[in-house]
């Protein structure tokens, strides 16, 4: 359970975690803009699955073929693919890599689905720990409201319908998100989450995020190398 810094990588990985609607994506976007505008080597890792893994995952979801075990494994496959093809090379190249969700989403989600927590953590132990993890903790009702307000229909797995919590997708989603939140809070201390109050104004949160990043990372390390001028 070492961080990229402890493993001697020149790059640093910053992850944000939290429920849908906790405001984490907004915060990581603003962090990215701040780092970019300083001209630093920063990369926002989007979920960029390779074609094959994506095809299998979407087939499984569309046809509702997934059990808790295969749901967990196909997402681990997807994560491994992204980890090995994208994250590791960027961190080797000395980037600040920003991740909207990391392995903790899988820990929470798969445990709620009934997979043994040690098994899930064991599978992901090929992945190094982020150098910083921000956890955006918003009251469940606020997160739910942000997601459900005038929103499209919830998808089957997204609502946790496979868990048979309720026949109503919205009710199922509420229960599912509530259990996810419990899981996140339970692992918060183990993984040294920097817990953010997601009910604060965007600017107040961003100011704390930037202060923490500046305090914990030596940002001068991420100034791009310039080629020497041609003679």
């Amino acid at each position, binding site marked *: 359970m070492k961080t990229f810094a402890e493993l001697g990588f020149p790059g640093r990985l910053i992850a944000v975690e939290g429920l849908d609607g906790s405001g984490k994506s907004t915060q990581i976007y603003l962090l990215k803009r701040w780092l970019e505008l300083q001209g630093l080597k920063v990369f926002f890792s989007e979920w960029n699955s390779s074609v094959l*893994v994506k095809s299998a995952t979407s087939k499984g979801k569309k046809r509702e073929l997934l*059990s808790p075990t295969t749901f967990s494994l196909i997402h681990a496959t997807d994560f491994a693919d992204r980890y090995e093809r994208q994250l590791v090379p960027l961190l080797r190249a000395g980037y600040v890599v920003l991740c909207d969700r990391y392995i903790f989403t899988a820990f929470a989600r798969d445990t709620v689905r009934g997979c043994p927590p040690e098994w899930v953590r064991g599978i992901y132990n090929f992945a190094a720990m982020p150098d910083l993890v921000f956890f955006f903790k918003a009251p469940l009702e606020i997160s739910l409201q942000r997601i459900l307000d005038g929103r499209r229909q919830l998808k089957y797995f997204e609502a946790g319908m496979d868990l048979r919590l309720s026949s109503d997708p919205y009710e199922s989603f509420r229960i599912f998100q509530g259990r996810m939140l419990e899981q996140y809070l339970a692992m918060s201390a183990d993984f040294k989450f920097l817990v953010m109050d997601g009910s604060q104004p965007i600017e107040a949160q961003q100011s704390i995020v930037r202060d923490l990043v500046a305090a914990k990372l030596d940002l001068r390390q991420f100034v791009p190398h310039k080629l020497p001028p041609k003679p």
Partner: protein
Amino acid sequence: MKAARPPSSRKNHPVIVVPKGKPRRFYGQGVPGVDLSKLAGKLIVIEGADGSGRSTQIARLVQWLEGAGHATVQVGLKRSTLVSEELDQAQQGNILSHTTLSLFYATDFADQLENIILPGLRAGLMVLADRYIYTLMVRDMVRGMDEAWLKNLYGIALVPDVVFYLNVQPQELVERNFAKKQALDYWESGMDLGLSTDMFDSFLQYQALVAAKFREIQRTYGFTIVDGHRSPDEIHAELRRGIQSVLEG
């Protein structure tokens, strides 16, 4: 209505053996939601390299088992509804890195475990597996993957009732592969390991590594090593004896 009873005299056919139950376990954590005491059937695994005679032997076992009154179902690697097509494509292009490919295979295995193996056993079938987690683990081990990681991953697997490993020398495997496909397979030659640029050399070296690893894990997983150099009849007879004793408990 009374339940049908066997007639008192049965001259034309031998007694059909009803398999005896035995306590079951998973290798590790298992998959959630399975009642192990309800798995009445038997899980029979045949392991071995390509060309070791696995499919021939499985076909003959199916004949024999069905003749003896047992219903069968077959599973094998890369046969899941979920990811088999994608795995095939991934292998052709060699585009996924190790951990990814490894997890992709585990997904394929888990899908068949939950949708064919466990329901089959629940229904009292003889489940014949053309390779199981051992091939998957060995392939990854010779590629340097962490054994503890693999053990945890495949802790979802059910411990089979019997596992036969058809052992055939690499030199003999080469000839059988040429006779069957006129060419050596990229993966079965372990070309991705860079042991040799020469495919024939690589095949021999890779198959020797795999066989050594199988012998190494044989102690842990307790499978029966079967000499695959003998005639199909002799091998079949040995497998039958092994399965017979599983059925009789």
